């Protein structure tokens, strides 16, 4: 299993505030992903990274931004949190690209009130 940690694990925030979630990996994987998981929608890709400072949008990227300044860290920022962004957020990594096996972190449960 890839060594992937996410912080914080739980967060409650108010509508309109910025929030940053952190993903840290120790496997030196090139690719990193941010997903959200919601009942009835499953896992949906928000953004992904294919190298340091190389990122691209996923299917539900509106309202989110990402940054990757180091191989091991991938940050997800909610610029101005909304109640529709209440979800469980997962980071994943791999070294072969999007269509291949991914290794997931434990998740962050975010509640926007």
């Amino acid at each position, binding site marked *: *299993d890839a060594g*992937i940690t996410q912080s914080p694990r739980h967060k409650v925030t108010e509508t309109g505030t910025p929030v940053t979630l952190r993903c840290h990996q120790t496997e030196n994987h090139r690719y990193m992903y941010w997903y959200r998981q919601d009942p*009835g*929608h*499953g*896992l*949906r*890709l928000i953004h992904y990274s294919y190298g340091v400072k190389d990122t691209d949008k*996923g299917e539900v990227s509106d309202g989110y931004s990402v940054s990757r300044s180091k191989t091991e860290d991938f940050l997800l920022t909610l610029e101005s949190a909304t109640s529709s962004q209440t979800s469980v957020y*997962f980071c*994943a990594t791999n070294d072969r*690209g*999007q*269509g*291949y*096996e*991914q*290794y*997931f*972190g*434990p*998740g962050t449960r975010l509640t926007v009130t």
Partner: protein
Amino acid sequence: TQLLEQSPQFLSIQEGENLTVYCNSSSVFSSLQWYRQEPGEGPVLLVTVVTGGEVKKLKRLTFQFGDARKDSSLHITAAQPGDTGLYLCAGCPNAGNNRKLIWGLGTSLAVNP
């Protein structure tokens, strides 16, 4: 739009029973992955199937990839409470330059003692 449909959506059985869950699509996939997700954790990769007709076994779990590489099944023999979780399938599309994983919504399995 490529879709992966998983059935049943929910399954509750007694310890010792056998079960099969399905992952179906009208599209061809170059490979298909199965993950298990326990409550409060991220998905964990169980297996990847690549060749049409392929069968892989993981202890009491048997995975099969359809001959046409459009569907897959997971059979669990003598289910145990530890098998409880959300089973997710994810397929790598067969074509395209930027092939993103297509995720099913999952089968939620509860094995009662």
